[in-house]
């Protein structure tokens, strides 16, 4: 399974739609001055994977992730983040590369063969939606997709700014949970 694309629209400082494309392997560096939005991209991925705690995203309420305006722009009414992955196994019909993803459970048909699109929306009304390949699903379905990959609720494959010490200062049983996730 490979990461192909991240789309952000109305999410934190990303007022308009912005897109990051990836080859699926290798190193992509994200650079820029203080406060320009780099960590907001990290927040966006945590969020679309199902993060439930606004505090983990530096907010007080989940509503804080919606673009709240700037000098020249009005606040947005909706925050949308889409993650697009590619499963070569799905595409070719044979067993795909096993990099930790369970075979997607009841995955809706995608636009392109092997494509898995995960979307989360939050309206300023508070209404919230998760989608897999365009079909509305539950949070639970998104979490199941990533179970055991290090991108589930125990997402050790994402290290947020200033949180690298987390694994060392965690309780012994929390560290067990991390190994169990990888098991």
């Amino acid at each position, binding site marked *: 399974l490979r990461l192909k694309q991240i789309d952000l629209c109305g999410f934190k400082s990303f007022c308009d739609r912005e897109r990051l494309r990836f080859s699926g392997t290798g190193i992509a560096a994200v650079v820029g001055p203080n406060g320009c939005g780099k960590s907001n991209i990290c927040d966006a991925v945590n969020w679309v994977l199902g993060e439930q705690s606004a505090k983990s995203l530096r907010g007080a309420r989940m509503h804080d992730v919606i673009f709240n305006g700037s000098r020249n722009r009005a606040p947005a009414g909706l925050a949308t983040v889409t993650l697009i992955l590619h499963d070569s196994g799905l595409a070719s019909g044979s067993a795909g590369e096993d990099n930790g993803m369970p075979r997607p459970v009841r995955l809706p048909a995608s636009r392109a063969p092997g494509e898995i699109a995960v979307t989360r929306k939050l309206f300023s009304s508070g209404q919230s939606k998760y989608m897999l390949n365009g079909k509305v699903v539950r949070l639970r379905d998104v979490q199941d997709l990533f179970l055991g990959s290090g991108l589930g609720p125990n997402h050790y494959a994402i290290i947020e700014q200033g949180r690298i010490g987390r694994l060392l200062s965690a309780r*012994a049983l929390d560290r067990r949970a991390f190994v169990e996730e990888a098991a």
Partner: protein
Amino acid sequence: TRKKFTAAFEGINLHFRQVFATLFGGGIGEMRLSDPDNPGESGIDIVAQPPGKRLQSVALLSGGEKSLTVMALLMATFRYKPSPFCILDEVDSQLDESNTVRMRSLLKEMAPETQFIVITHSKTTMEVAETLYGVTMGEAGVSRLVSVRMSDPAAGAEEQDRERE
């Protein structure tokens, strides 16, 4: 299941010892069960002893030593079981120059298996990226992206790494 856990524990640990020794130029880095007689429920402790130093709790390590220890454990986990992608937000901020070079070599080694997204201010770290995403705020409060594909930065960076050693 307990069998799976033990396999993962030992598999990751094998790699952790190696990567730690590579990053620190020696020393001992490994996981240990807090309660070895009860592997089915035991928590996990992390042991990290840089070369030449005596064994102490990981809490007493320096900021840079802690960063390297965690990176060693994370990369070891990916060697046991790769993830589709990995996001690292300023994990190099506490590293001195030579450790930044060691960390980026480690990332380069792991790169064929995984998509790394590395947020950084370090030019040294940027040098091993094939793609750079520049985030800008030309208009106040509005983030925009600019992408730059680096033309084979790997060759140049490898040269530099060998020079630095």
